[in-house]
């Protein structure tokens, strides 16, 4: 009888201890233990697409088209200016006309993006009206561009301008012939011209120098001609 009572007490104690142990383990679930063998990890990757003109003004000053000598080819005189070292010529078809100031540095565009980007260009003025006074002339006036990504720039200021390897998009960077920047009343990547469809973003290869040229017919209305060049950035299509 005494043994049985003793065993009864021991059994009750065992049940109590086991119950306490079980509930203490249950408490672990509220402190971070997984309920299943499957966990989820959510990873948020933030990309920044950003470009900036670090050199943003080309100012040729005041000048005029030399009309004293007719051009046999174009039946008129016109001036041509560019920011590259090859064709810094004023009034290409006439004699030298003082006034317009030589500019040998194009606009410098830097990408501060965290991935490769697509860059487009447009201009906010219609050259036909702005420089040709809406009269058909030959050659038609235009705002023209070409780019370079050469480390040594026109002004010799070293790495402040183009950097080699910036445009990685094959065949998209126009580096030879000047071509027109499209006139876009409302800027938008679908109507602008592609400057480069894939640019690198490393610190040593994230700058392009964009040379500009302009030809001005003698029909150009006098007065200031301020033109805004807009560069728009977009994500590279995979």
């Amino acid at each position: 009888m005494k043994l049985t009572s003793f065993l009864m007490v021991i059994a009750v104690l065992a049940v109590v201890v086991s119950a306490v142990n079980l509930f203490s383990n249950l408490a672990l679930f509220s402190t971070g233990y997984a309920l299943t063998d499957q966990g989820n990890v959510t990873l948020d990757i933030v990309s920044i697409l950003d470009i900036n003109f670090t050199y943003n003004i080309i100012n040729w000053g005041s000048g005029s088209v030399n009309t004293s000598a007719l051009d046999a080819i174009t039946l008129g005189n016109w001036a041509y200016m560019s920011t590259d070292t090859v064709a810094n010529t004023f009034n290409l078809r006439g004699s030298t006309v003082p006034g317009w100031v030589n500019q040998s540095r194009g606009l410098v565009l830097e990408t501060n993006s965290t991935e490769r980007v697509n860059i487009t260009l447009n201009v906010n003025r219609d050259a036909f009206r702005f420089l040709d006074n809406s009269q058909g002339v030959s050659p038609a006036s235009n705002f023209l561009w070409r780019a370079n990504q050469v480390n040594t720039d026109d002004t010799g200021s070293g790495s402040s301008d183009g950097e080699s390897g910036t445009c990685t998009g094959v065949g998209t960077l126009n580096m030879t012939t000047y071509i027109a920047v499209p006139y876009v009343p409302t800027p938008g990547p679908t109507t602008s011209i592609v400057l480069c469809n894939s640019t690198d973003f490393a610190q040593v290869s994230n700058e392009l120098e964009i040379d500009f040229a302009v030809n001005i017919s003698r029909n150009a209305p006098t007065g200031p001609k301020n033109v805004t060049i807009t560069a728009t950035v977009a994500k590279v299509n995979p």
Partner: protein
Amino acid sequence: MVEQDKVVVILLLITIILSVLSVVLVFGADSPGIREITKKETVTVGPPSQGSIELVVEPPAGGVSG
């Protein structure tokens, strides 16, 4: 006497069951393997950048107006 034995046996069985449950909880629940990774991409696009070309056209030097 026999009834008390039965109670003791039942209590011991309950003890065993509770212990087994405890062991299962400790070793069974602690397996937080990562099976799924959800990648979310947020793209922040900066505003267009602008540069300018400035020049002033004066009256033609040759005296001929367009």
